[in-house]
């Protein structure tokens, strides 16, 4: 096999705040192959956004600080690059799409200007050429009469259209890697569905590698090849999408999936809810961060941090950070209930 497109190794990020040091990302490692779509889900505040931003030097510093790790992209360690070198990669080889299209687009600049910026910057296109390309891009993301609308300002676009503009910006320089952080959270389901169709289409046409961060398990199910579940600044589980959904090995993943209504109605039963509160990242717990909320936690979970590894019976590529064997425990439980 060739080298992976992106290899994150032992990435840790902290924020120095008045209230103490927030350990936002703890020892995160994973790889992405070219063409793969990785879905990242997890608790709010579990470090999903921070770790991708940190890779490209986009966290505010201070208070942010990368304590350790390396991020190899096409063989180069992004964390060791100078700001100038990073600038050449950002928006060029790696495209970003942020969550809120209203605040992520500059309200006082035309869509055209914001769209051609990466093109003139990275591809060295002339303004005229860049504009042509920008119109194509808008066309591509499905904005009707792109030629006319490109001269408008973000506030003249609807939410869904703005988000498409964001995606067009992310894709402008045909990046190898597209990182989308909650790119559809602000959209209603019908618009979200259109955006997702668009991304699928792009993947097919350009073979783009995608990191898709979201809360919506449904979106992940429809888009991702692999899923990575984060909690308390750590990766709890990662693996092929089917395997994660069908047979989660982490109690947290299992809890997440269980809290979703599966077409049942109120009359049938109460929704499952994960007990307890998310961890305080200024004093990260020893051991498995999820242990205090985990009904299956073993004593070891409270003392020793489990590594991300493949355990017996798992689908290929499926890894979990747990000291317990969830499917076995579940089976046992079902057995007793019967």
């Amino acid at each position, binding site marked *: 096999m060739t080298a992976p497109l992106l290899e994150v190794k032992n990435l840790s990020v902290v924020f120095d*705040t*008045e*209230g103490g040091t927030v350990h936002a990302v703890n020892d995160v490692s994973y790889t992405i192959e070219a063409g793969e779509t990785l879905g990242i889900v997890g608790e709010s505040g579990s470090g999903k956004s921070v770790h991708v931003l940190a890779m490209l030097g986009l966290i505010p510093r201070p208070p942010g600080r990368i304590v350790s790790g390396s991020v190899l992209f096409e063989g180069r360690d992004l964390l060791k690059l100078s700001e100038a070198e990073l600038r050449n990669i950002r928006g060029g080889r790696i495209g970003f799409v942020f969550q809120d299209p209203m605040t992520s687009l500059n309200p006082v600049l035309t869509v055209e200007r914001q769209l051609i910026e990466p093109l003139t910057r990275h591809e060295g296109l002339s303004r005229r050429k860049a504009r042509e390309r920008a119109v194509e891009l808008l066309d591509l993301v499905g904005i009707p009469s792109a030629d006319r609308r490109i001269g408008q300002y973000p506030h003249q676009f609807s939410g869904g259209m703005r988000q498409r503009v964001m995606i067009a910006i992310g894709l402008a320089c045909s990046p190898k890697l597209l990182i989308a952080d909650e790119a559809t959270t602000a959209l209603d389901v019908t618009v979200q569905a259109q955006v997702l169709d668009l991304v699928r289409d792009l993947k097919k046409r350009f073979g783009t590698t995608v990191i898709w961060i979201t809360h919506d398990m449904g979106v992940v199910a429809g888009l991702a090849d692999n899923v990575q579940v984060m909690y308390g600044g750590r990766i709890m589980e990662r693996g092929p999408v089917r395997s994660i959904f069908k047979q989660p090995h982490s109690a947290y993943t299992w809890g997440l999936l269980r809290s979703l209504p599966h077409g049942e109605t109120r009359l049938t039963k109460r929704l499952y809810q994960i007990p307890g509160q998310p961890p*305080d990242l*200024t004093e990260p717990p020893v051991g498995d961060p999820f242990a205090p909320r985990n009904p299956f936690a073993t004593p070891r979970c409270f003392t020793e941090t489990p590594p991300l590894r493949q355990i017996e019976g798992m689908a290929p590529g499926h890894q979990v950070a747990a000291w317990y064997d969830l499917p076995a425990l579940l089976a046992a439980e079902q057995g007793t209930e019967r």
Partner: protein
Amino acid sequence: MRSFFSALLRSKAGLFGWIILSIFVLAALLAPVLGLDSPVRGSLSARLDPPTWTGLFSPGPHPLGTDQLGRDILSRIIYGSRVTLAVAAAAVILGGIVGVGLGIVAGYFRGMTDRILMRLVDIQLAFPLMLLALLVVAALGPSLRNIIIVLALTSWIRYARIIRGQVLAVREREFVQSARAIGSGTLRIMFRHILPNVLTPALVVGTLELARVIIMDAALSFLGLGVPPPAPSWGRMLADGRTYLSTAWWIVTFPGLAIVLTVLSVNLVGDWLRDYFDPKQRGLK
């Protein structure tokens, strides 16, 4: 109270500002018991005596020198802090109360009320401030009270404008709607919900205004319309001493220094208060 001091100790700049400001305020309060020379009576024979720093341990009779009438400058600065700080604080607070009040009313009720109040602001803005101050002082005569009124008059619009803008945003916040939904009265909404959320910008405007007002008093004094004598105000000392700038530098330098230090400390304290009153900054757990 404990959290107040611990918060203070955490910020060096804030601490510095508080200390300087406290020194001035304390000096102002304690002026009569400090055993100072009279700030208003001088001796003609001691006219324009330079500072006597014969050494820290044997200070001469006039550590900061005397002015053109032989009055002790140290004493005038300390007594002057009473006048200057009182005038400035009164003007800023008066302007603040009026400005914040009207800003909240305008922003909350919007519509006609807002339009009328904002036209008032326009009128006042279009009226050159310095000239307004001069006209009013000239018309009413320079007295401590009139100076305060004039300074407050030039000050309220800044609060009103800024607070109104903030209120327009805050009133759309959902907690305001929620307050309406539980049946809270207008006054309650304005004072319990909106006011605390616009207090920080008001505080910031206040600190800026305090500096401006002190300087404005100096400018009015320069034109002969400041705080009337014999009350020693810093601005007045500075203005009266200006003709002696090249023969007796100490007459203006020390009151000038007092102004700079006060403005500096007020700014630092203002910044600190903004953080202190922001619960987000306070109890980061």
